[in-house]
């Protein structure tokens, strides 16, 4: 039932967008790849939780505890149905980073049964992974004696699948891969990778940080086995992430955080675990943030993920066009609209990304500069960093015009035009 997508109406829900920046410039927020802004509906939902229902969930027989548990568990339901998952498969973590680490710890625990890696086993990642989907696997391999291998990236910023069958071979137990690159904007072709992984009996871990906030996702359709994303990039609060896993795998996998609420029974010497999702949610959880994330998801669902996606693709088309018109600007990543999302990295001949960012900031244009937590990818492209513009549902063509104008004035200022 998606209505016409009205960006001006959407923008009214985001109070920060009317903030005055340096010297009174208006904010042009093009850094949603790092974190998104939050609509007032999310802030209100969190506040309502605190002022009306705040109590420790699952731990009291009083009315507040009942309402808090209801709010928390119905948030879980909202997340589950948003990604096509069963409710008990959705685990609240603090971030995608934590979600991915939980999986990596699970695969290193001898009590995880057949999931536990051993020397000779292989973990496959890609050269475009965010550090959060790379270092946990490096550490897992170090702990277990397994080997880390990776799919490399082509000059166009695509995964090189020409050696797929050698890289993902019968020793491969885990394939951990990003859905959409946080640097290049590339949307990776999951079908052949998932098919190959499952052919050799490996599980597929999907880093969906940059896809869940921008397009409709169904974990069953993607056929992946685990999925992670962060709330703060999806219009939700900071301090919350999601870990989704297939029920059978969550059942087999050991938890990595131990404490209250995740137990079945405890003595001084030993303890047994509750079933998922509880097993993976030790301690009083981030209840208000779960409620806030559910509000963010409801906000996006009301607008319609298809409409949001279409809006962002239109922005990206417009932006690629505008940026390609600037001499001395090099797009790092796909320079066409084929399988890419609204994240564009670039370099400017003769100006360091930091300096580009600084000049843009002067005009209220917020971009990110540096290695974007994907240092190996920077080396792959022989750059020390890039400037990155990344879009979300509240961005406009005007902001892209401002970006292009800002880049040109940076070139003028640094006399490289």
């Amino acid at each position: 039932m998606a209505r016409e997508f009205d960006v001006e109406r959407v923008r009214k829900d985001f109070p920060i967008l009317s903030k005055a920046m340096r010297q009174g410039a208006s904010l042009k927020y093009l850094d949603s790849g790092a974190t998104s802004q939050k609509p007032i509906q999310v802030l209100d939902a969190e506040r309502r939780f605190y002022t009306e229902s705040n109590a420790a969930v699952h731990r009291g027989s009083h009315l507040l505890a009942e309402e808090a548990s209801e709010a928390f568990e119905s948030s879980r339901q909202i997340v589950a149905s948003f990604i096509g998952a069963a409710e008990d498969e959705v685990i609240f973590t603090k971030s995608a980073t934590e979600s991915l680490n939980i999986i990596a710890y699970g695969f290193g625990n001898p009590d995880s049964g057949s999931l536990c890696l051993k020397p000779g086993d292989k973990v496959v990642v890609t050269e475009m992974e965010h550090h959060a989907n790379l270092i946990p696997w490096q550490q897992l391999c170090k702990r277990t004696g397994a080997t880390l291998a990776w799919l490399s990236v082509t000059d166009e910023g695509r995964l090189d699948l020409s050696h797929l069958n050698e890289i993902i071979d019968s020793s491969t137990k885990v394939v951990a891969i990003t859905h959409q690159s946080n640097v290049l904007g590339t949307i990776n072709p999951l079908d052949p990778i998932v098919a190959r992984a499952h052919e050799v009996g490996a599980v597929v871990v999907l880093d969906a940080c940059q896809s869940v906030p921008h397009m409709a996702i169904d974990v069953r359709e993607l056929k992946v086995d685990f999925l992670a994303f962060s709330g703060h990039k999806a219009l939700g609060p900071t301090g919350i992430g999601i870990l989704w896993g297939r029920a059978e795998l969550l059942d087999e996998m050991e938890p990595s955080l131990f404490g209250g609420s995740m137990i079945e029974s405890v003595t001084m010497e030993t303890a047994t675990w509750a079933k998922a999702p509880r097993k993976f949610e030790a301690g009083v959880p981030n209840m208000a943030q779960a409620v806030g994330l559910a509000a963010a998801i409801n906000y996006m669902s009301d607008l319609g993920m298809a409409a949001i996606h279409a809006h962002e693709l239109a922005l990206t088309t417009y932006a690629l066009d505008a940026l390609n018109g600037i001499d001395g600007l090099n797009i790092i990543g796909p320079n066409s609209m084929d399988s890419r999302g609204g994240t564009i990295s670039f370099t400017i001949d003769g100006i360091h990304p930091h300096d580009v960012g600084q000049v843009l900031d002067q005009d209220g244009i917020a971009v990110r500069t540096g290695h974007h937590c994907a240092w190996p990818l920077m080396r792959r492209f022989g750059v020390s960093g890039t400037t990155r513009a990344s879009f979300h549902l509240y961005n406009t063509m005007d902001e892209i015009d401002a970006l292009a104008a800002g880049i040109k004035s940076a070139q003028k200022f640094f006399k490289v035009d």
Partner: protein
Amino acid sequence: MELESLYQEVILDHYKNPHNKGLAPEKDIQVHHVNPSCGDEITLNLTLRNGDVSSVTWDGVGCSISQASSSIMSELVTGKPVAQAMQTLENFSELMASKGTQSGDEEVLEDAVALAGVSKFPARVKCALLGWMAFKDAVVQVNGREEDQT
């Protein structure tokens, strides 16, 4: 007052004088269930004969709701064909999930309809279900064992 609708007289009676409490020595199987969030526990002995529930005895600690519910359950299922007992359990689970919208079928659930009020208190539903889930688990395990033998 809501309190009386939750703690009906019949519940308090079962709580004070629980039926089938105290484990019978003979049994096909023994199961032990806990409620991890409050620490309540139940041990249940089950005997089946010719496809009928011939004996359910139990012991454990718990609140009035869990004790009364276990007592009522043990009465309700004893003597019934297993399939019918499982159907009763289904009905009871449905009543507990009804959030106060159902009053329960007295023909099937007998004394257990007194527990209808529990469904309005989500935190107490697991108390009411503790004994029933133990019974269900026991049946599943006995049946599993029999299948193993065939």
